[in-house]
């Protein structure tokens, strides 16, 4: 039986007349990496803040590790990085972790281990005010890891990292997930999410517009057909498969059918006297799915 680490039911948060989060039903399963996607201002951070008890919902319910948001017993098992890392600038990296360690009853040995994990062992004695943006981000992730949590809630953890740092962060998150931890990761970097997440939820204007595995959210792929004359090919395909299945995507035509229909489609076009120069299968990218789903919500 699959258990859920995070479940929300109609979770909402309004600021005055603005609905920042609008009745979302989120479901993050234990042991998975869940990508929480959305444009800036879509409501991701507000949702995460509600899940860790930093903000109160206007309506709706949520449970995190089986308890209400902000419950000390759940927080003790949750590692959190919300928005940019919040650090004490006059303390060293090591002391910043030690402060969090004292709140969570974590000892010095674990602090040193985490410094190694996030690649800050050599800079541990340096004041945080002298850290680069990337180092601060890694220390923020280190703070989230310190209590060896069952659930990690990370808000844009790759922000400010250089390309090598992004790769390291991806490897770190993949490693954490392979240890059986649940990771709830908010991001707007679609390619990153596609590489490490098991399931995703897409948030647009405060509403959860899609949720599922990557394949489920991406939806069907399409046959890309190059045929001349193109106008006649478009007419024919629309008559045979319906206008919804056909999209003009110059210089080709995208036809939403299953890939095993490629030969049949090719034959039909040839039989109609059209000159077919290419038929290929194209998976729908995460970016396409994201923009389609969020555009629909923006049109509402």
């Amino acid at each position: 039986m699959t258990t859920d680490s995070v479940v929300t039911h109609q979770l909402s948060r309004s600021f005055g007349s603005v609905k920042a989060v609008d009745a979302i039903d989120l479901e993050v399963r234990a042991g998975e990496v869940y990508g929480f996607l959305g444009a800036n201002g879509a409501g991701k951070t507000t949702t995460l803040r509600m899940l860790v008890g930093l903000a109160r919902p206007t309506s709706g319910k949520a449970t995190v590790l089986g308890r209400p948001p902000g419950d000390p017993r759940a927080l003790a098992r949750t590692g959190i990085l919300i928005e940019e890392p919040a650090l004490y600038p006059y303390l060293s990296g090591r002391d910043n972790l030690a402060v969090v360690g004292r709140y969570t009853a974590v000892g010095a040995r674990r602090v040193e281990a985490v410094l190694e994990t996030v690649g800050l062992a050599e800079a541990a004695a340096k004041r945080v005010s002298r850290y680069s943006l990337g180092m601060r981000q890694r220390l923020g992730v280190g703070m989230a890891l310190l209590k060896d949590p069952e659930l990690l809630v990370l808000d844009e953890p790759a922000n400010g990292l250089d390309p090598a740092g992004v790769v390291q962060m991806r490897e770190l998150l993949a490693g954490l997930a392979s240890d059986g931890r649940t990771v709830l990761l908010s991001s707007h970097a679609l390619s990153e999410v596609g590489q490490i997440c098991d399931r995703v939820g897409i948030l647009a204007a405060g509403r959860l517009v899609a949720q599922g595995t990557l394949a489920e959210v991406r939806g069907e792929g399409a046959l890309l057909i190059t045929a001349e004359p193109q106008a006649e090919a478009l007419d024919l395909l629309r008559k045979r498969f319906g206008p919804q299945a056909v999209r003009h995507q110059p210089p080709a035509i995208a036809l939403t059918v299953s890939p095993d229909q490629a030969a049949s489609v090719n034959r039909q076009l040839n039989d109609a006297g059209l000159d077919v120069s290419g038929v290929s299968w194209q998976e729908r990218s995460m970016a396409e799915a994201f923009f389609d789903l969020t555009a629909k919500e923006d049109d509402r």
Partner: protein
Amino acid sequence: MRRSLYAEMLKLGKRPAVHTTIGVWLVLSLFFGYVFPYFTYRGSSAAAAEERAAAIAGVLDALPASLATTPIAGLPVFAGALAILFGALATGSEYGWRTMKIVLSQGPPRTSVIAGKLAALVLLLASILVLSFATAAVASAIVEGATELPTAWPSAGAVLAGLGSGLLIAAMWCSAGVLLAHLLRGTAMPIGLGLVWALAVENLLRTGASIPVLGTLQRYTPGSAAGSLVAALDATPQSAGGTPGVSTNLPGLTAAAVLLVYLAVFVIATVLVVRRRDVN
């Protein structure tokens, strides 16, 4: 609460602004409590009887006999302002650096986080007062030797009463700083408002004390209650040439009770604000 207390002690113990404020507190206490009265005494002319009498009265507070009160005589005004500063700094910076979200999302309940912070601040203030009394003891012994005025050391009980009263006053001002910082989510405004109250508004109310309503109100302000408690321990009141803020507006026990009420109100209000509030 123990975990929060340890975390707060690490934060306070390593903070340069805290070290600086402790230094300022001790230097001001020594200068106005001992150095300034001693040099006034030394510089006074034996020929000018009135000036000489005032100088002797001034230096009496710098002798060991006044050790129970002189180190806390500044608390109704200037040291009180520094106690507000500690509370506002320790709390307001958590909003400025946005570390409040880290503090409140680690597991300890919000009430225990606040209790830990307040306990750490009380420990800090107690340490400063002990240090202040120790340096005052050394300074008063030096003044005694230099002036050759006859004096006696106070009893241990009197010194402890001074320490306890000083801690109550300092904790009251500090908790006001903590509350203001939570209400205003920052450092600058709470410090500014706290200083305006302790240094300006309290003084203005004193000048209007002859107006019946203001007079009653003024007797029960935090600064007035602090000054009354210090005066009840035999410190020279401001009206008799003592430290500004030391007054005889209230009896000692009433003053202590008023201070306890302020302390409780500030702490309870802080708990209510933090427990109910969203954190950015």
